[in-house]
């Protein structure tokens, strides 16, 4: 049956509960070539393990959606998984450029990358509209901003009550959303806390979803009555992936590996160094015996012995450090 476009989460109708799966199986089943894929997590809980498995399974022709592409999308883009990127801030937070993203946009390497660029406010509103089953998001934005000249998906509507001109962007409706959460319970419900970003909206806006978690517990136990909970029947697959957000972080489990973010600047700057690192740490050494993303040498110490990663911040003329309004 073809569901109307106004029903997000086609696979979540009724009370079908999430299935606990291995990482390779979940990605094989839920992420297909040519899909529109969102991987969210605003600095916190970025789904690195899930994204790495997408790279290992060599998905192609993806449209990748993410507010802040971060190192994970630098890796996916550099490994040739994406044809198109929908985003709002594409830097290495506090460090500089995403070199693989830049190489794809500036030089078409390893393949041309079409971009659809928005502001954070637009992306956040567009996910919200997707979760709400609306066709578009309406907000007060892009006033005097040139993005609306280059992005045909930024349009204007007139408020029927006041006549005020407001910005409109299409709702985000991913084929599949991948997120990392803190834990799931035995019934397959998912909990996240801390900086919760836009993950709830991104899951509810998508047709399918894969949630990696630090652990599965019998019961969540005492918790805030307002913790973000995704009921089991809103999620397609749950995967146990300890440290699955590394080098980002999981509140209460491990800290953000800021040293790795700094080291990535050197690893990613050169195509060959990047490819070697990906082969050694993600492609070959990247999965342990249980199918888990192994993280290999994937910590901040790597790449820092001979170099503190900060020295070369200025050699690409200091622009990158200031990009995005010095925001990330």
């Amino acid at each position, binding site marked *: 049956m073809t569901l109307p476009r106004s029903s997000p989460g086609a696979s979540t109708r009724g009370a079908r509960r999430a299935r606990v799966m291995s990482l390779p199986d979940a990605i094989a089943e839920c992420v297909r070539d040519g899909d529109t894929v969102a991987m969210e997590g605003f600095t916190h809980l970025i789904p690195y393990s899930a994204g790495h498995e997408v790279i290992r399974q060599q998905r192609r022709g993806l449209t990748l959606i993410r507010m802040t592409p971060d190192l994970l999308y630098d890796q996916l883009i550099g490994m040739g998984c994406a044809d198109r990127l929908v985003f709002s801030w594409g830097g290495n*937070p506090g460090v500089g450029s995403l070199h693989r993203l830049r190489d794809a946009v500036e030089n078409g390497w390893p393949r041309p990358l079409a971009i659809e660029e928005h502001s954070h406010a637009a992306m956040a509103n567009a996910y919200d509209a997707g979760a709400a089953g609306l066709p578009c998001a309406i907000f007060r934005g892009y*006033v005097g901003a040139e993005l609306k000249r280059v992005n045909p998906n930024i349009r204007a509507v007139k408020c029927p009550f006041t006549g005020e001109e407001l910005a409109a962007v299409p709702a985000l409706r991913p084929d599949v959303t991948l997120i990392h959460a803190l834990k799931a319970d035995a019934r397959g419900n998912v909990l996240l806390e801390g900086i919760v970003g836009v993950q709830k909206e991104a899951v509810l806006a998508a047709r399918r979803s894969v949630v990696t978690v630090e652990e599965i517990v019998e019961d969540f136990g005492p918790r805030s009555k307002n913790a973000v909970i995704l009921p089991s029947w809103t999620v397609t697959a749950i995967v146990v992936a300890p440290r699955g957000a590394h080098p980002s972080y999981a509140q209460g489990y491990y800290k953000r590996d800021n*040293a790795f973010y700094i080291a990535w600047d050197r690893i990613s700057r050169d195509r060959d160094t990047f490819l070697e690192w990906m082969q050694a740490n993600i492609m070959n050494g990247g999965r342990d015996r249980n199918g888990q993303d192994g993280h290999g040498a994937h910590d901040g110490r790597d790449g820092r012995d001979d170099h503190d990663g900060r020295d070369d911040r200025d050699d690409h003329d200091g622009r990158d450090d200031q990009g995005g309004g*010095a*925001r*990330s």
Partner: protein
Amino acid sequence: MSTANPRYTAAEIMTIVAARVLRNEDVCFVGIGAPSAACNLARLTHAPDIALIYESGTIETRPDVLPLSIGDGELCDTALTTVSVPEMFRYWLQGGRVTVGFLGGAQIDRHGNLNTTVVGPYDKPKVRLPGGGGAPEIATHCHEIYIIMPQQKRTFVERLDFVTSLGHGEGGDHRARLGAKTLGPTRLITDLCVFEPDPATKVMSVVAIHPGVSREQIQANTGWPVTYAAEVALTAEPTDAEISVLRDLQHRTQLAHA
């Protein structure tokens, strides 16, 4: 820029001057880098109750070390509350709750418009910059905008390659005609001086010069003909307390991110 005064660096006086203009009552939308340092310096000195908001959703955060990213755990751990990103942009920013927003950029023009998107044409960029992030709406929803940028001829340009976020547009009342209801850039703080918009033309004009800096030096680092307010002040020297609190903060930060 180097300064003749060994007591502090050019970057330090820029941060300290930015901290001074923040008020205890401000609700401040903070960016990473110099804005984050300035806002937390203000909080640790004359503005202990300032409400610092980072776009990751943390409200009234009081970090002990400066975050490397906009969403380090330190921000959430020390915040009064943390909200989702859609809520942050809708209720708090668009809702008009923020008094001061900090912005910077790769390029600025004389009207305080900023480019953080591309150098060169958009479709065939010479340098692809990170993009706007929160900036397009921060620029128009905060009551006023402070811009912090080290001053260089290469970045203080005659004409932007791309207008990522609106300042005073083409000057005069252009900003209001475009539909912005807020003040826009009221201060541009650099490592050499402080600019404020001329009330009529909205051209950013120098109102204060940092100690030891000459007008020639300012012009040499600006891509448009610099104008000066009728009265130009001399920036007060950073105090020992300002310098030591800032350095302690930076030192703690360095240790934390090593």
